């Protein structure tokens, strides 16, 4: 049953990664403009930024 120790550790680690990424995306303001994001997907990248 030692495999369960590995599995628990692995699942917690992966879940933790997901949480960290979500918190990062929240902090960088990626949920501040959901309407804009829906439109931006249609923009071409033909202008230099």
């Amino acid at each position, binding site marked *: *049953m030692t495999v369960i120790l590995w599995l628990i550790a692995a699942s917690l680690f992966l*879940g933790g990664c997901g*949480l960290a990424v979500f918190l990062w995306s929240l902090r960088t303001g990626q949920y*501040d*403009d959901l309407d804009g994001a829906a439109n931006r997907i249609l923009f071409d990248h033909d*202008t230099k930024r």
Partner: protein
Amino acid sequence: MARSGADFVAADPVDAVPDTACAHCGLPAAAGRRFCCPGCAAAFDTIQSLGLGSYYERCIAERPPRPEPSEPFDLTRFITARPDGAKEVVLAIDGLRCGACVWLIESVLGQERSVLTGRVNMTSRRLKLVWRGSETDGERLVERIESLGYRLVPFDPAALAAARDDTDRALIRALAVAGFAAINVMLMSIGIWAGDASGLLDTMGPATRDLLHYVSAIIALPAIAYCGQPFFRSALAVLRHGRTNMDVPISIGVVLVTGLSLAQTMAHARDAYFDSAITLLFFLLIGRVLDHRARGRVRATVELLLTLRSTEVTVLGQDGTATRRPARALVPGERVLVGMGERIGVDGVVERGESSVDTSLVTGESLPVTVAPGGQVFAGTMNLGAPLTVVVTAAEDGTLLAECARLIEASEARRSRFVVLADRVARRYAPAVHLTALATFLGWYFWGGASFTQALLTASAVLIITCPCALALAVPAVQVIATARLFRAGILLKSATALERLAEVDTVVFDKTGTLTEPALALVRDGIDPLVLREAAALAAHSRHPLARALVVASGNVPMAERVEEHPGQGVSAGETRLGSAAFVGALAFQTSATLVGSGTAPRAAGAPSMLPEDRSPPLASTIGTTTPNPRHGPARPGHRSSEGSGLTVPPVEPGDDGVSGPGAVGVWRPGDDAGRGSISRRHGPARPGHLPPREVPPSDPIVSDHTAAGPELWFGRPGQEPVRFTFAERPRVDALETIARLRRMGLKIRLLSGDREASVARIAAAAGIDDWRAECSPIEKVAALREMGGRVLMVGDGLNDGPCLAEAHVSASPATAADISQTLADAVFQSAGLGAIADLIVTARRARGLMRGNIGLSLAYNSLMVPLAIAGMVTPWLAAAAMSGSSLLVIGNSFRARA
């Protein structure tokens, strides 16, 4: 001037209509022309020269706004310097139509070398601009965007920081953590339950179970400590005041269950409830986030609308220099220059100039009043005539404003005592739950023969089952969905408790001017040739004077005439064709009743010159006596400013032979004029505080049913033809009659309270089908009338004079054209042109209340089913988790019925 699809049809080249569509904004352009106006041509050129021509293909829904030169504003105050030396400013954008506009603005800024960040937030309609360079560079960038047709208004950095919504992010962060923890703890729990349910307890050894419990504890404890904070804090806050709310049982339940589970784990017991505790928080946080989001968005919208309207004023320095500054930054004693057609942004006393002022937003008066040196003017009124110099004064005691402010303060304090449904339930629910749990514990311990731990465990199962998860979702879930539905319909619900209060309403009280009537004046169409109207409107499109705008609205979109000159205070002309005051157009020479459209008080042939007082300087003279009620959709309309710093004016109207001007006509008031006209006492009575601008209509004004006979007018003269007179009148909103009938059918009493004179109130009341009305009410009288009525009143008003009523009423609503203060005070702001929003509001609120009650009933019913099981000690952890999630989903599902 909605840009409807019809414009595009009319603009089709094969169509018989000679107009073509403007290549930029899509509005009609004169035949053979590519653009409707020079602004569009310039914008088109700019876009093409930057190689961004594909913009026009990107416009999905609508064409870009027509560029109209902006009023200059001082950007420097709004710029913040960043540590790296770059400068930053945040601006509100008006005129965003779809993603293409975002693309255009960002592409234009992206081609500027100095710009580090130019990003548009489409949700909050803000542009964040960061650039390297001087402040004037920033102004140049802003001008560049404005030349494309967007209107930009800078945000005050201090106000922006204050309004920053940290709560929203904190809640979402808590939600994320709770979600993560709930999923992982549930995984452990499923393992444990699987071992249980298989009936082969041997399949999972106690060591493995303990391990899973410990892992659960390691995840759940920090997560609960973090995610529970919003509830713990709120519960502590109310407990300190000796009250209780829904957060109290939530907090007690969560803490107790967590602590007990930890004790169980350490005691190597079979059951632990970590999953229940954390899942509970997860569900509750969903409710919190949704609730906060919906309200945050509405608040942001209202805030943005008000910012776009907030006025800068022209301040005259000691040395005669003029600077533009925001109105609220002024101190008493400063001098402000108010141009024609400009909103007076300050309270003050007129120092120089005579003009007529539209006070409808302040007093509810539909006809303008004249002011002269020494007269008082108020913020929110509009100068219709000649330029005025105003000395800023503080709101003195005894003025209308001070009185309104006092009344508002008193009413607001009273209203904040409203207790929402959820709290009313919580007040009874929380003690009942805690008593039940206590009784369960005592029962099992003393009579049931259970051990201390066993009894405590059973009691905590009761707490988990009764933990008001569904109950806490019951109200916010409905609120979010109903608020979002109203938001889409253009109704902004600002107060969290407004829905519940709206549902209780039994009387609706309307204000007249601007609420029951259209906020803008309408052209009286009788006998007007549509072709003549089109011609006149082409000229009028160059002016932002309210009457000119009304003309444009009446004719629909027309190409703007070319080579039009503005004659401040008189009118506009294109060659020999003129639109403006009678004197300007030369209508006086044709002074015969035959030329008049509609009969009424005609300017006397000799009237215009003779009525001008000797002491008046010539440029002012022609504007005096301007009559223009209620010009609310000119400059106040975002995106519709026009270049002219001045507007049209309308002819002086000479008082009739008996010394009484016709109804609605405005004579000239001067201090020391005949006693009657200088007095303001009659209509407002002694109860009316303050010194309003003098009233123009003598005390003996007759009650006249035909309001259109006289009043604001414009003349249109063409060479070789008799001048045409356009008259304008106040008009009830399109659906006023239907809405009022509909409200009656809903069992509501309807009343009308107006500050306007009796004749016009009677006329509008009749047109709207209201038989219960009162005219000539001061703000105090309005509030008194409201109190007399008793019951639960929905007040609908737009003026400053309605402010106290809006605050006093059980619940209140304002149109989006209302004074800033009214919009701030109102619980709901509706943007539609009709009054149907009021009926929709009440229907939605009643439905929402039904659903809230239904939800509460559902969750109480669920409790009454499950609690006996819990008391009996038959609730296992997995049953608790399943039942709790089930009831929450049921409540959320039921709430979605609010969308219908």
